Every structure is written in C-alpha cells, then in structure tokens.
C-alpha cells in the first residue's frame, strides 16, 4: 500500500515523544496524588498545564522578542567560536610553535567552569555581550578539537597527490582538506550548537540581559512559576533541536552527489 510506509515513518517518529509525554503525565499524576492537589504545579506540573502556559506566553510580544534576541546571541557565539576554533585548529596543526602556545590555553578554557567565565565576562564586557562571548568560548574548544583531529586524519596519500600534481594552497584546502573534514565539521557544529544554547542561556540566567530567554527563565524561578519554567525550557530545547537539524541538512546538501 502506498500510504503504509509514510504512516509507519510518522508512527515511528511519534513513538518516543508520546512515550515520554506519557511518562511525564504518569509522574505528574503521582505527585498530584501525593500532595493531594495542593501545589503539585510547584513540583511537577501536568504537560497540559505547561502547554497552556506556553500558549499564553506565545501571545505576548516579549516571548518572540526574547526568542529572537537569544537566537541572535547564540548563533553569533556559535559563528565566532567556530571561526576562531577553525583558525586555531589550522594554526596548531601547521605549526609546532602555535601548538605549544595555544593548545594548553584551549584546554584550560575547556576545563574551566562556565560559571567562573560568566562572572568574569560580566565584569569585562557588560551584561549584554556575555551570552555571545560565553557561547563562543564553549564552542571554540569543541571545534578546535574536532578539526585538529580531522586535519591530522586527512589521507596522506591525497596530500601527496596534491604535492605531486602541484595543487595551489587554495586547491589543497578546497579539494582535499575541506571535503575530508566534512564529518568532523558536522560533529563539531552539532555538538557546538548544543553547547552554545546551554551556555548562552545559562549566561543569560546569570547576567539578565533584556530581552532574553534566560532572563525569562530566571523570572519564572524567582516568581515560582514552574509551568512557565517548563514552557521556556521546552522552547530552548526546541530551538536547539531546530538549529541542529538545520546544520545537519546543510551538511547533507554539501555531501549530496558523491555517489556513495
């Protein structure tokens, strides 16, 4: 039957969300029973309550302004972190001196607690720039690490071909390095995008720029509006997943047509 396969695909995709919504509903019910209807929304609200809170928020201009502002900060942080990480990966792979100089610093950035950076960057740059700077700092080591691995794993036979066939630097970059790095770039960007969201929103929660998704999350915590907290968290997760899907689709288009 022509409709059987698409229907099967839809059902397979719906299975996990429906299952976890069911689990959520079940535990919300248990909490509701244990507190006997007195304030279960403070502990674990029902999915329907969160949905209502989300719909209510979506009717306000501030909701969309917060989403747009956070999206811009996170994407800018991702782009900056990816650009710097790529540049440093190229430098540390090409030059032993650059490797000795930069690699320890990048490892320190990777290991240091995000909260420390957030508090320091508030002092250095002012609150509105903190989420972008923090997102970039979290993305940079991931991109650097992945691309460094990729550059070192580039097929030496293809590099030798480039030398023997007198490829210019530009040709070596575009014809050998970049296509070889594709899986590493995809991995770096998808992991980096997730980190950029988490760290960017965490920075917003701590430094409260306006408008911002993180500021809204802070306000819900402050006012004990737990269904709203769930709603804003769901928005953050949804935006992160959409960004990741867009990145994957872009990378798939790049690969399309290799005949493999």
């Amino acid at each position, binding site marked *: 039957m022509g409709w059987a396969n698409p229907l099967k695909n839809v059902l397979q995709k719906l299975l996990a969300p429906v299952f976890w919504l069911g689990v959520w509903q079940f535990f919300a019910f248990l909490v509701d029973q244990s507190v006997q209807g007195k304030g279960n929304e403070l502990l674990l609200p029902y999915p329907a309550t969160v949905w209502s809170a989300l719909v209510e928020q979506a009717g306000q201009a501030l909701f969309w302004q917060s989403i747009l502002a956070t999206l811009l900060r996170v994407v800018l942080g991702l782009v900056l972190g990816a650009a710097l990480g790529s540049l440093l990966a190229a430098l540390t792979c090409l030059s032993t001196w650059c490797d000795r100089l930069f690699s320890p610093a990048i490892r320190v950035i990777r290991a240091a607690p995000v909260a420390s950076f957030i508090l320091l960057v508030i002092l250095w740059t002012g609150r509105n720039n903190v989420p972008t700077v923090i997102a970039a700092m979290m993305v940079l080591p991931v991109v650097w690490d992945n691309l460094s691995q990729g550059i070192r794993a580039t097929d030496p*036979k*293809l590099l*030798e*071909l480039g*030398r*023997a*066939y*007198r*490829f210019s630097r530009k*040709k070596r970059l575009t*014809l*050998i390095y970049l*296509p070889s790095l594709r899986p590493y770039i995809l991995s770096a960007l998808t992991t980096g995008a997730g980190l950029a969201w988490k760290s960017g929103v965490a920075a917003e929660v701590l430094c409260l720029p306006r408008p911002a998704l993180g500021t809204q999350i802070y306000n819900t915590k402050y006012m004990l509006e737990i269904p709203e907290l769930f709603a804003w968290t769901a928005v953050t997760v949804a935006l992160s997943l959409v960004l990741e899907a867009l990145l994957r689709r872009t990378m798939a288009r790049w*690969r399309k*047509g*290799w*005949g*493999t």
Partner: protein
Amino acid sequence: MTLCEHLSLSFGEKVVLEDFSLSIPDRGIIALQGPSGCGKTTLLRILAGLEHPQAGTLRDISPQQTALLFQDDRLLPWRTARQQLTDVLPRSRWDEAPKLLELVELSGEDHTYPAQLSGGMGRRLALARCLALEAKLYLLDEPFAGVDLPRALRILERLKAWEAPILLVSHEPDLLSNADLVLSLDGPPLHVIS
C-alpha cells in the same frame, strides 16, 4: 635524454638504489619490467620528487616537469570524472577534458563519481588525470592494472602519439611487446639487465 645519474637510496639496511643511472629516448613509450619490490616504483617516485636520493642527481628533467600516475588511483571521492580532470587542467584547457575521457574510453562518464566506477574505470580515470598535467615526462606506475587487455592495448596505441616520453611500469607481456622500448630491471639494488 639522461634522467638520472649515480642515484643511491637506502631505507635503513635495505639498499634500493646504488649508483643507478638511466637514459631514455626523447619520445615514445619506454616500458620498465622487473620483479615486484626491485625498486621500479621508488625510481618513479624519485623522478617525481617524492623521494630524495642520498646521492646522485636528476639531470634533464626536473621533478616539476614530470607527471606521476601513482600505483593506486588516488581519485578524490567528492569530484566527478570531469572535475578530476579540470582540477589539474588550467582553465584555458578545460575543453580538453572530454577528449581525455575519450582517450581512456570513459566518454559519457563526465558526471560519474569514483565510487560509481569499476576498478578498471577508476584506473583509466586516474590515467586521464595524469595525462591532463602538462609535463615533459610521464611516469605511469602500472597504468592498466585492472583494465581489460584489448582496451589497454587500444589506449597504449593512442599514447604512442603523445608528445612527451612515457616511462611505464608493467608486468603484462602483451603490453610490454607493444612498447617502443623495454628495459628489464632487477634488484634491489635496482639495475638494468637489458
């Protein structure tokens, strides 16, 4: 022309070349035959500038004037057959790509990717890409490995009209008998028997 004089090269204890010299005619197909591991590929790699001899000199042709067909195809998996050629051809000669594909009997495969080609077709595409390079000496390391003999003989016949000399490594007697000159080698260390 004299390609090299008094070349010596060792890998650790293994002496691959010792006081090796080679002169060839200015045109035509010069076939090198010899047992596996005797040093033929190393010689081609030295002439292409990819290995550096410990002694001796390259004479009339510099490595920059050679074009080497590697023993393995080394096609770029993400480039079509036509792109493999335009990648090495200067833009002013891009219109030669179809002729080169025709020469190796791959007409109509312009938009095919290496993964979609058979082993023999990939070998022929690698050969076409090597021939696309401007060079004064072509170094072909087993160019017809995996290519059926009648087709290999047809292509070899076309290569006889090539402007620059072609130094070709092969083990196939029918191909060797069609070369303009056959040099029998042995080693290591590499030396010419006849």
